[in-house]
Protein backbone atom coordinates (compact mmCIF):
# COMPACT_ATOMS: atom_id res chain seq x y z
CA UNK A 1 0.00 0.00 0.00
CA UNK A 2 2.81 2.40 0.91
CA UNK A 3 4.41 2.27 -2.47
CA UNK A 4 1.13 2.90 -4.24
CA UNK A 5 0.29 6.15 -2.47
CA UNK A 6 3.07 8.43 -3.81
CA UNK A 7 2.37 7.21 -7.30
CA UNK A 8 -1.29 8.07 -6.84
CA UNK A 9 -0.33 11.58 -5.74
CA UNK A 10 1.16 12.24 -9.15
CA UNK A 11 -1.25 10.13 -11.17
CA UNK A 12 -4.48 11.65 -9.95
CA UNK A 13 -3.69 15.26 -10.87
CA UNK A 14 -2.34 14.14 -14.24
CA UNK A 15 -5.44 12.07 -14.78
CA UNK A 16 -7.67 15.03 -13.99
CA UNK A 17 -5.74 17.16 -16.47
CA UNK A 18 -6.09 14.45 -19.02
CA UNK A 19 -9.82 14.24 -18.48
CA UNK A 20 -10.16 17.98 -18.84
CA UNK A 21 -8.15 17.94 -22.08
CA UNK A 22 -10.19 15.12 -23.56
CA UNK A 23 -13.54 16.46 -22.50
CA UNK A 24 -12.90 19.93 -23.78
CA UNK A 25 -11.18 18.83 -27.00
CA UNK A 26 -14.44 18.12 -28.69
CA UNK A 27 -16.27 20.91 -27.02
CA UNK A 28 -17.84 23.57 -29.06
CA UNK A 29 -19.28 25.43 -26.11
CA UNK A 30 -18.28 29.01 -26.27
CA UNK A 31 -17.57 29.23 -22.57
CA UNK A 32 -15.38 26.15 -22.26
CA UNK A 33 -12.81 26.21 -25.03
CA UNK A 34 -10.56 23.19 -25.51
CA UNK A 35 -7.73 22.95 -23.04
CA UNK A 36 -5.27 22.98 -25.90
CA UNK A 37 -6.63 26.33 -27.04
CA UNK A 38 -6.29 27.76 -23.57
CA UNK A 39 -2.73 26.53 -23.29
CA UNK A 40 -1.69 27.96 -26.64
CA UNK A 41 -3.32 31.29 -25.81
CA UNK A 42 -1.51 31.18 -22.51
CA UNK A 43 1.73 30.73 -24.34
CA UNK A 44 1.06 33.66 -26.67
CA UNK A 45 -0.14 36.01 -24.00
CA UNK A 46 1.96 35.38 -20.95
CA UNK A 47 5.17 33.91 -22.32
CA UNK A 48 6.35 36.69 -22.36
CA UNK A 49 4.20 39.12 -24.29
CA UNK A 50 2.24 40.77 -21.51
CA UNK A 51 4.63 40.26 -18.63
CA UNK A 52 5.86 43.83 -18.68
CA UNK A 53 2.50 45.45 -19.23
CA UNK A 54 0.39 43.47 -16.80
CA UNK A 55 2.27 40.98 -14.65
CA UNK A 56 4.91 43.40 -13.42
CA UNK A 57 2.51 46.15 -12.30
CA UNK A 58 0.33 43.58 -10.56
CA UNK A 59 3.26 42.06 -8.72
CA UNK A 60 4.67 45.43 -7.74
CA UNK A 61 1.39 46.54 -6.20
CA UNK A 62 1.03 43.22 -4.45
CA UNK A 63 4.52 43.35 -2.97
CA UNK A 64 4.25 46.96 -1.86
CA UNK A 65 0.88 46.48 -0.17
CA UNK A 66 1.92 43.21 1.47
CA UNK A 67 5.20 44.48 2.87
CA UNK A 68 3.57 47.67 4.12
CA UNK A 69 0.95 45.61 5.95
CA UNK A 70 3.53 43.30 7.54
CA UNK A 71 5.68 46.20 8.71
CA UNK A 72 2.79 48.09 10.32
CA UNK A 73 1.25 44.94 11.78
CA UNK A 74 4.44 43.84 13.51
CA UNK A 75 5.24 47.36 14.76
CA UNK A 76 1.76 47.81 16.22
CA UNK A 77 1.34 44.19 17.28
CA UNK A 78 4.38 44.08 19.54
CA UNK A 79 3.26 46.77 22.01
CA UNK A 80 -0.31 45.45 21.90
CA UNK A 81 0.99 41.98 22.66
CA UNK A 82 3.00 43.21 25.60
CA UNK A 83 0.35 45.42 27.20
CA UNK A 84 -2.96 43.92 28.30
CA UNK A 85 -4.83 47.19 28.76
CA UNK A 86 -3.87 48.51 25.34
CA UNK A 87 -4.96 45.21 23.88
CA UNK A 88 -8.33 45.30 25.57
CA UNK A 89 -8.86 48.88 24.46
CA UNK A 90 -8.01 48.16 20.85
CA UNK A 91 -9.87 44.85 20.57
CA UNK A 92 -13.34 45.96 19.43
CA UNK A 93 -11.88 48.48 16.97
CA UNK A 94 -9.62 45.86 15.45
CA UNK A 95 -12.42 43.28 15.32
CA UNK A 96 -14.75 45.74 13.59
CA UNK A 97 -12.24 47.00 11.05
CA UNK A 98 -11.17 43.53 10.08
CA UNK A 99 -14.79 42.38 9.71
CA UNK A 100 -15.52 44.91 6.97
CA UNK A 101 -15.69 42.89 3.75
CA UNK A 102 -12.73 44.22 1.77
CA UNK A 103 -14.68 44.82 -1.46
CA UNK A 104 -16.91 47.23 0.45
CA UNK A 105 -13.83 49.33 1.12
CA UNK A 106 -12.98 49.78 -2.54
CA UNK A 107 -15.40 52.63 -3.16
CA UNK A 108 -14.14 54.31 -0.02
CA UNK A 109 -10.57 53.98 -1.19
CA UNK A 110 -11.49 55.39 -4.58
CA UNK A 111 -13.18 58.39 -3.01
CA UNK A 112 -10.31 59.15 -0.67
CA UNK A 113 -7.25 58.26 -2.72
CA UNK A 114 -8.44 58.07 -6.32
CA UNK A 115 -7.99 55.27 -8.82
CA UNK A 116 -4.24 55.09 -9.13
CA UNK A 117 -1.61 52.72 -7.83
CA UNK A 118 -1.67 54.12 -4.30
CA UNK A 119 -5.32 53.13 -3.94
CA UNK A 120 -4.55 49.52 -4.79
CA UNK A 121 -1.47 49.39 -2.60
CA UNK A 122 -3.33 50.91 0.33
CA UNK A 123 -6.29 48.61 0.09
CA UNK A 124 -4.07 45.55 -0.21
CA UNK A 125 -2.19 46.79 2.83
CA UNK A 126 -5.35 47.43 4.83
CA UNK A 127 -6.73 43.96 4.22
CA UNK A 128 -3.42 42.16 4.80
CA UNK A 129 -2.80 44.04 8.02
CA UNK A 130 -5.27 42.17 10.22
CA UNK A 131 -4.18 38.52 10.08
CA UNK A 132 -0.56 39.51 10.69
CA UNK A 133 -1.53 41.91 13.48
CA UNK A 134 -3.68 39.37 15.31
CA UNK A 135 -1.08 36.67 14.95
CA UNK A 136 1.68 38.99 16.15
CA UNK A 137 -0.33 39.78 19.25
CA UNK A 138 -1.05 36.10 19.89
CA UNK A 139 2.55 35.21 19.22
CA UNK A 140 3.90 37.74 21.71
CA UNK A 141 1.37 36.70 24.34
CA UNK A 142 2.28 33.09 23.82
CA UNK A 143 5.99 33.48 24.49
CA UNK A 144 6.99 31.01 27.18
CA UNK A 145 7.14 32.82 30.56
CA UNK A 146 10.28 30.89 31.44
CA UNK A 147 11.99 32.57 28.51
CA UNK A 148 10.94 35.98 29.76
CA UNK A 149 12.02 35.13 33.31
CA UNK A 150 15.41 34.14 31.95
CA UNK A 151 15.77 37.48 30.21
CA UNK A 152 14.86 39.33 33.38
CA UNK A 153 17.23 37.39 35.60
CA UNK A 154 20.16 38.04 33.31
CA UNK A 155 19.34 41.68 32.77
CA UNK A 156 18.60 41.16 29.10
CA UNK A 157 15.97 43.34 27.44
CA UNK A 158 12.52 41.84 26.80
CA UNK A 159 13.05 42.25 23.06
CA UNK A 160 15.61 39.46 23.07
CA UNK A 161 12.76 36.95 23.42
CA UNK A 162 10.70 38.33 20.52
CA UNK A 163 11.93 35.77 17.95
CA UNK A 164 9.88 33.23 19.88
CA UNK A 165 6.80 34.86 18.34
CA UNK A 166 8.12 34.39 14.82
CA UNK A 167 6.39 31.07 14.00
CA UNK A 168 3.00 32.55 14.80
CA UNK A 169 3.75 35.75 12.91
CA UNK A 170 4.66 33.69 9.88
CA UNK A 171 1.34 31.86 10.08
CA UNK A 172 -0.40 35.21 9.88
CA UNK A 173 1.82 36.30 7.00
CA UNK A 174 0.85 33.21 5.05
CA UNK A 175 -2.86 33.95 5.39
CA UNK A 176 -2.25 37.56 4.40
CA UNK A 177 -0.41 36.44 1.28
CA UNK A 178 -3.56 34.79 -0.10
CA UNK A 179 -5.54 37.89 0.81
CA UNK A 180 -3.01 40.08 -0.99
CA UNK A 181 -3.55 38.18 -4.23
CA UNK A 182 -7.32 38.40 -3.87
CA UNK A 183 -7.31 42.13 -3.20
CA UNK A 184 -4.90 42.74 -6.03
CA UNK A 185 -7.30 41.04 -8.42
CA UNK A 186 -10.43 42.75 -7.11
CA UNK A 187 -8.91 46.20 -7.10
CA UNK A 188 -7.71 45.71 -10.65
CA UNK A 189 -11.11 44.53 -11.77
CA UNK A 190 -12.80 47.55 -10.30
CA UNK A 191 -10.46 50.43 -11.00
CA UNK A 192 -7.45 49.86 -13.17
CA UNK A 193 -6.03 50.18 -16.64
CA UNK A 194 -3.53 47.38 -16.39
CA UNK A 195 -2.79 44.28 -14.40
CA UNK A 196 -3.76 40.61 -14.54
CA UNK A 197 -7.15 41.16 -12.89
CA UNK A 198 -7.91 43.95 -15.33
CA UNK A 199 -6.91 41.72 -18.23
CA UNK A 200 -9.19 38.89 -17.14
CA UNK A 201 -12.18 41.17 -16.78
CA UNK A 202 -11.48 42.95 -20.08
CA UNK A 203 -11.20 39.65 -21.87
CA UNK A 204 -14.54 38.58 -20.52
CA UNK A 205 -16.16 41.83 -21.57
CA UNK A 206 -14.80 41.58 -25.06
CA UNK A 207 -15.66 37.88 -25.20
CA UNK A 208 -12.06 36.84 -25.67
CA UNK A 209 -12.78 33.61 -23.82
CA UNK A 210 -9.52 31.65 -24.22
CA UNK A 211 -7.66 34.79 -23.11
CA UNK A 212 -9.91 35.03 -20.07
CA UNK A 213 -9.20 31.44 -19.11
CA UNK A 214 -5.49 31.93 -19.68
CA UNK A 215 -5.60 34.80 -17.23
CA UNK A 216 -7.43 32.66 -14.68
CA UNK A 217 -4.84 29.95 -15.15
CA UNK A 218 -2.06 32.46 -14.63
CA UNK A 219 -3.65 33.64 -11.41
CA UNK A 220 -3.80 30.08 -10.18
CA UNK A 221 -0.14 29.55 -10.99
CA UNK A 222 0.74 32.85 -9.35
CA UNK A 223 -1.08 31.95 -6.17
CA UNK A 224 0.63 28.59 -6.05
CA UNK A 225 4.07 30.03 -6.83
CA UNK A 226 3.83 32.74 -4.18
CA UNK A 227 2.81 30.16 -1.62
CA UNK A 228 5.76 28.01 -2.59
CA UNK A 229 8.15 30.93 -2.35
CA UNK A 230 6.75 31.78 1.05
CA UNK A 231 7.26 28.21 2.24
CA UNK A 232 10.88 28.27 1.13
CA UNK A 233 11.56 31.52 2.98
CA UNK A 234 9.71 30.28 6.06
CA UNK A 235 11.69 27.06 6.12
CA UNK A 236 14.95 28.96 6.25
CA UNK A 237 13.94 31.56 8.79
CA UNK A 238 12.20 29.09 11.07
CA UNK A 239 14.64 26.21 10.75
CA UNK A 240 15.20 26.35 14.50
CA UNK A 241 11.49 26.00 15.15
CA UNK A 242 11.10 22.92 13.01
CA UNK A 243 14.10 21.37 14.68
CA UNK A 244 12.82 22.06 18.15
CA UNK A 245 9.41 20.62 17.37
CA UNK A 246 10.44 17.67 15.27
Amino acid at each position, binding site marked *: *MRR*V*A*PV*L*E*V*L*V*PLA*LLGVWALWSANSDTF*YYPPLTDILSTFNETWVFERVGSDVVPSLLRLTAGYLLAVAIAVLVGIPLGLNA*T*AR*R*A*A*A*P*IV*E*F*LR*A*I*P*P*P*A*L*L*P*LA*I*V*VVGVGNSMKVLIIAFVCLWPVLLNTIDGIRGIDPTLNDTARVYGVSRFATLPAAAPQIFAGMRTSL*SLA*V*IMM*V*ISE*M*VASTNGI*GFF*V*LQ*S*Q*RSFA*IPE*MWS*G*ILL*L*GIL*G*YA*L*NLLFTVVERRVLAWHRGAHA
Partner: protein
Amino acid sequence: MKTWAPPTVAVLCVLALWELVVGIGLLNEDHVPPMTDTVAELANLLGDPDFWAAVGNTMQGWALGLGIAAVLAIPLGIVIGSSATAYRSVRFVVEFLRPIPSVALVPLAVLIYGVGLESKVFLAAFASFWPLFVQSLYGVHDVDPVATDTARSFGLGRLERLWRIKLPSAVPYIATGLRISSAVALILAVTAELVIGSAGLGRSINVARQSGAIELMYALIITTGLIGYLLNTLTSQAERRVLHWHPSQRQVAA
Protein backbone atom coordinates in the same frame (compact mmCIF):
# COMPACT_ATOMS: atom_id res chain seq x y z
CA MET B 1 -16.51 47.33 34.98
CA LYS B 2 -12.78 47.18 34.55
CA THR B 3 -12.96 45.15 31.37
CA TRP B 4 -15.48 47.46 29.72
CA ALA B 5 -13.65 50.68 30.36
CA PRO B 6 -10.61 50.52 28.06
CA PRO B 7 -12.45 49.48 24.89
CA THR B 8 -15.28 51.96 25.44
CA VAL B 9 -12.81 54.77 26.01
CA ALA B 10 -10.87 53.73 22.93
CA VAL B 11 -13.96 53.66 20.69
CA LEU B 12 -15.14 57.04 21.98
CA CYS B 13 -11.67 58.49 21.40
CA VAL B 14 -11.62 57.22 17.82
CA LEU B 15 -15.06 58.67 17.10
CA ALA B 16 -14.08 61.99 18.65
CA LEU B 17 -10.83 62.00 16.70
CA TRP B 18 -12.73 61.36 13.47
CA GLU B 19 -15.01 64.33 14.13
CA LEU B 20 -12.08 66.51 15.05
CA VAL B 21 -9.92 65.63 12.08
CA VAL B 22 -12.70 66.36 9.62
CA GLY B 23 -13.79 69.44 11.54
CA ILE B 24 -10.41 71.14 11.35
CA GLY B 25 -10.07 70.19 7.73
CA LEU B 26 -7.18 67.75 8.02
CA LEU B 27 -9.29 65.34 6.00
CA ASN B 28 -11.29 66.76 3.13
CA GLU B 29 -15.01 66.78 3.82
CA ASP B 30 -15.63 65.62 0.28
CA HIS B 31 -13.61 62.50 1.00
CA VAL B 32 -14.54 61.79 4.59
CA PRO B 33 -17.82 63.12 5.99
CA PRO B 34 -18.09 64.25 9.61
CA MET B 35 -18.71 61.47 12.08
CA THR B 36 -21.96 62.96 13.30
CA ASP B 37 -23.37 63.21 9.77
CA THR B 38 -22.45 59.59 9.08
CA VAL B 39 -24.06 58.36 12.27
CA ALA B 40 -27.20 60.36 11.49
CA GLU B 41 -27.30 58.81 8.02
CA LEU B 42 -26.94 55.37 9.56
CA ALA B 43 -29.86 56.05 11.88
CA ASN B 44 -31.97 57.19 8.92
CA LEU B 45 -31.20 54.00 7.06
CA LEU B 46 -32.75 51.91 9.77
CA GLY B 47 -36.14 53.19 8.73
CA ASP B 48 -35.50 52.79 5.00
CA PRO B 49 -37.09 49.70 3.39
CA ASP B 50 -34.65 49.82 0.47
CA PHE B 51 -31.80 49.51 2.95
CA TRP B 52 -33.31 46.41 4.51
CA ALA B 53 -33.98 44.98 1.06
CA ALA B 54 -30.29 45.35 0.25
CA VAL B 55 -29.30 43.75 3.55
CA GLY B 56 -31.69 40.92 2.79
CA ASN B 57 -30.16 40.40 -0.64
CA THR B 58 -26.65 40.21 0.73
CA MET B 59 -27.64 37.84 3.51
CA GLN B 60 -29.54 35.68 1.04
CA GLY B 61 -26.44 35.31 -1.12
CA TRP B 62 -24.36 34.59 1.96
CA ALA B 63 -26.72 31.99 3.34
CA LEU B 64 -27.23 30.14 0.05
CA GLY B 65 -23.54 30.20 -0.78
CA LEU B 66 -22.47 29.00 2.65
CA GLY B 67 -25.24 26.42 2.77
CA ILE B 68 -24.38 24.86 -0.58
CA ALA B 69 -20.70 24.86 0.32
CA ALA B 70 -21.37 23.16 3.66
CA VAL B 71 -23.62 20.50 2.17
CA LEU B 72 -20.92 19.61 -0.36
CA ALA B 73 -17.73 20.21 1.56
CA ILE B 74 -18.39 18.56 4.89
CA PRO B 75 -19.53 15.11 3.71
CA LEU B 76 -16.92 15.08 0.94
CA GLY B 77 -14.20 16.10 3.36
CA ILE B 78 -15.21 13.46 5.89
CA VAL B 79 -15.42 10.66 3.35
CA ILE B 80 -12.09 11.47 1.70
CA GLY B 81 -10.40 12.21 4.99
CA SER B 82 -11.28 8.89 6.52
CA SER B 83 -9.62 6.95 3.76
CA ALA B 84 -5.86 7.22 3.82
CA THR B 85 -5.57 6.35 0.13
CA ALA B 86 -8.18 8.85 -1.00
CA TYR B 87 -6.58 11.50 1.17
CA ARG B 88 -3.18 11.07 -0.38
CA SER B 89 -4.55 11.05 -3.91
CA VAL B 90 -6.45 14.23 -3.42
CA ARG B 91 -3.93 16.18 -1.37
CA PHE B 92 -1.78 17.55 -4.16
CA VAL B 93 -4.78 18.69 -6.19
CA VAL B 94 -6.28 20.42 -3.18
CA GLU B 95 -3.03 22.20 -2.36
CA PHE B 96 -2.85 23.45 -5.94
CA LEU B 97 -6.45 24.55 -6.24
CA ARG B 98 -6.64 26.12 -2.79
CA PRO B 99 -4.54 29.22 -3.41
CA ILE B 100 -6.42 30.10 -6.61
CA PRO B 101 -8.22 33.30 -5.79
CA SER B 102 -11.94 32.77 -6.29
CA VAL B 103 -12.30 36.33 -7.50
CA ALA B 104 -10.55 35.25 -10.65
CA LEU B 105 -13.74 33.41 -11.48
CA VAL B 106 -15.92 36.51 -11.36
CA PRO B 107 -15.85 36.99 -15.14
CA LEU B 108 -16.57 33.28 -15.60
CA ALA B 109 -19.53 33.52 -13.25
CA VAL B 110 -20.94 36.41 -15.27
CA LEU B 111 -20.58 34.47 -18.49
CA ILE B 112 -22.34 31.40 -17.22
CA TYR B 113 -24.84 32.75 -14.73
CA GLY B 114 -25.39 36.34 -15.68
CA VAL B 115 -25.53 39.22 -13.26
CA GLY B 116 -28.11 38.03 -10.76
CA LEU B 117 -28.36 35.97 -7.64
CA GLU B 118 -27.04 32.80 -9.27
CA SER B 119 -23.66 34.37 -9.98
CA LYS B 120 -23.40 35.62 -6.42
CA VAL B 121 -24.31 32.25 -4.97
CA PHE B 122 -21.92 30.45 -7.33
CA LEU B 123 -18.98 32.63 -6.28
CA ALA B 124 -19.83 32.53 -2.58
CA ALA B 125 -20.30 28.77 -2.66
CA PHE B 126 -17.12 28.12 -4.62
CA ALA B 127 -15.00 30.25 -2.34
CA SER B 128 -16.46 29.02 0.96
CA PHE B 129 -16.23 25.40 -0.18
CA TRP B 130 -12.46 25.28 0.30
CA PRO B 131 -12.00 26.20 3.96
CA LEU B 132 -14.82 23.85 5.00
CA PHE B 133 -13.56 21.04 2.79
CA VAL B 134 -9.98 21.34 3.95
CA GLN B 135 -10.95 21.61 7.60
CA SER B 136 -13.24 18.58 7.39
CA LEU B 137 -10.52 16.69 5.56
CA TYR B 138 -7.82 17.48 8.08
CA GLY B 139 -10.20 17.11 11.00
CA VAL B 140 -10.95 13.51 10.18
CA HIS B 141 -7.46 12.73 9.00
CA ASP B 142 -5.56 14.17 11.96
CA VAL B 143 -7.32 12.14 14.61
CA ASP B 144 -4.98 10.96 17.36
CA PRO B 145 -3.87 7.48 16.24
CA VAL B 146 -3.79 6.31 19.85
CA ALA B 147 -7.51 6.93 20.09
CA THR B 148 -8.30 4.99 16.92
CA ASP B 149 -5.96 2.14 17.87
CA THR B 150 -7.61 1.89 21.26
CA ALA B 151 -11.01 1.76 19.59
CA ARG B 152 -9.85 -0.90 17.19
CA SER B 153 -8.48 -3.00 20.03
CA PHE B 154 -11.89 -2.84 21.63
CA GLY B 155 -13.36 -4.39 18.50
CA LEU B 156 -15.02 -1.32 16.99
CA GLY B 157 -15.62 -1.67 13.27
CA ARG B 158 -14.63 0.88 10.64
CA LEU B 159 -17.96 2.65 10.49
CA GLU B 160 -18.27 2.73 14.26
CA ARG B 161 -14.77 4.15 14.56
CA LEU B 162 -15.77 6.88 12.13
CA TRP B 163 -18.92 7.69 14.03
CA ARG B 164 -17.61 7.46 17.57
CA ILE B 165 -13.99 8.57 17.36
CA LYS B 166 -13.21 10.41 14.15
CA LEU B 167 -16.33 12.53 13.80
CA PRO B 168 -16.34 13.93 17.34
CA SER B 169 -12.62 14.70 16.97
CA ALA B 170 -13.31 16.44 13.68
CA VAL B 171 -16.16 18.60 14.94
CA PRO B 172 -13.92 21.38 16.33
CA TYR B 173 -12.04 21.55 13.03
CA ILE B 174 -15.32 21.76 11.15
CA ALA B 175 -16.51 24.49 13.50
CA THR B 176 -13.38 26.48 12.68
CA GLY B 177 -14.04 25.86 9.00
CA LEU B 178 -17.56 27.23 9.36
CA ARG B 179 -16.25 30.37 10.97
CA ILE B 180 -13.76 30.97 8.17
CA SER B 181 -16.21 30.02 5.42
CA SER B 182 -18.89 32.30 6.82
CA ALA B 183 -16.54 35.27 6.51
CA VAL B 184 -15.46 34.19 3.03
CA ALA B 185 -19.07 33.78 1.84
CA LEU B 186 -19.89 37.29 3.01
CA ILE B 187 -16.86 38.70 1.23
CA LEU B 188 -17.67 37.01 -2.05
CA ALA B 189 -21.34 38.01 -1.86
CA VAL B 190 -20.34 41.64 -1.46
CA THR B 191 -17.70 41.27 -4.19
CA ALA B 192 -20.30 39.97 -6.63
CA GLU B 193 -22.58 42.87 -5.76
CA LEU B 194 -19.81 45.35 -6.23
CA VAL B 195 -18.14 44.04 -9.36
CA ILE B 196 -21.05 42.44 -11.17
CA GLY B 197 -23.85 44.62 -9.86
CA SER B 198 -26.10 42.02 -8.27
CA ALA B 199 -28.60 43.50 -5.86
CA GLY B 200 -27.31 43.96 -2.35
CA LEU B 201 -25.20 46.15 -0.09
CA GLY B 202 -22.18 46.01 -2.39
CA ARG B 203 -24.13 47.49 -5.26
CA SER B 204 -25.74 50.08 -3.00
CA ILE B 205 -22.30 51.17 -1.85
CA ASN B 206 -21.12 51.55 -5.44
CA VAL B 207 -24.25 53.46 -6.44
CA ALA B 208 -23.85 55.76 -3.46
CA ARG B 209 -20.30 56.52 -4.48
CA GLN B 210 -21.17 57.14 -8.11
CA SER B 211 -23.94 59.55 -7.19
CA GLY B 212 -21.74 61.39 -4.71
CA ALA B 213 -23.78 60.45 -1.63
CA ILE B 214 -20.69 60.05 0.50
CA GLU B 215 -22.32 59.86 3.94
CA LEU B 216 -24.59 57.14 2.61
CA MET B 217 -21.62 55.25 1.23
CA TYR B 218 -19.80 55.39 4.56
CA ALA B 219 -22.92 54.40 6.47
CA LEU B 220 -23.41 51.38 4.22
CA ILE B 221 -19.78 50.33 4.57
CA ILE B 222 -20.09 50.54 8.34
CA THR B 223 -23.19 48.37 8.05
CA THR B 224 -21.28 45.67 6.21
CA GLY B 225 -18.61 45.88 8.89
CA LEU B 226 -21.20 45.44 11.61
CA ILE B 227 -22.74 42.48 9.82
CA GLY B 228 -19.31 40.91 9.44
CA TYR B 229 -18.53 41.62 13.10
CA LEU B 230 -21.80 40.05 14.18
CA LEU B 231 -21.27 36.94 12.07
CA ASN B 232 -17.70 36.58 13.33
CA THR B 233 -18.82 36.87 16.93
CA LEU B 234 -21.60 34.31 16.51
CA THR B 235 -19.48 31.77 14.68
CA SER B 236 -16.56 32.27 17.09
CA GLN B 237 -18.78 31.67 20.06
CA ALA B 238 -20.24 28.57 18.48
CA GLU B 239 -16.72 27.40 17.73
CA ARG B 240 -15.59 27.98 21.30
CA ARG B 241 -18.57 26.09 22.66
CA VAL B 242 -17.77 23.12 20.54
CA LEU B 243 -14.06 23.32 21.23
CA HIS B 244 -14.15 23.68 24.99
CA TRP B 245 -13.01 20.16 25.63
CA HIS B 246 -10.29 20.17 22.99
CA PRO B 247 -6.66 20.20 24.19
CA SER B 248 -5.88 23.30 22.17
CA GLN B 249 -8.41 25.23 24.21
CA ARG B 250 -7.33 24.11 27.62
CA GLN B 251 -5.79 26.60 29.96
CA VAL B 252 -3.69 25.26 32.75
CA ALA B 253 -5.42 26.00 36.05
CA ALA B 254 -2.65 28.15 37.46
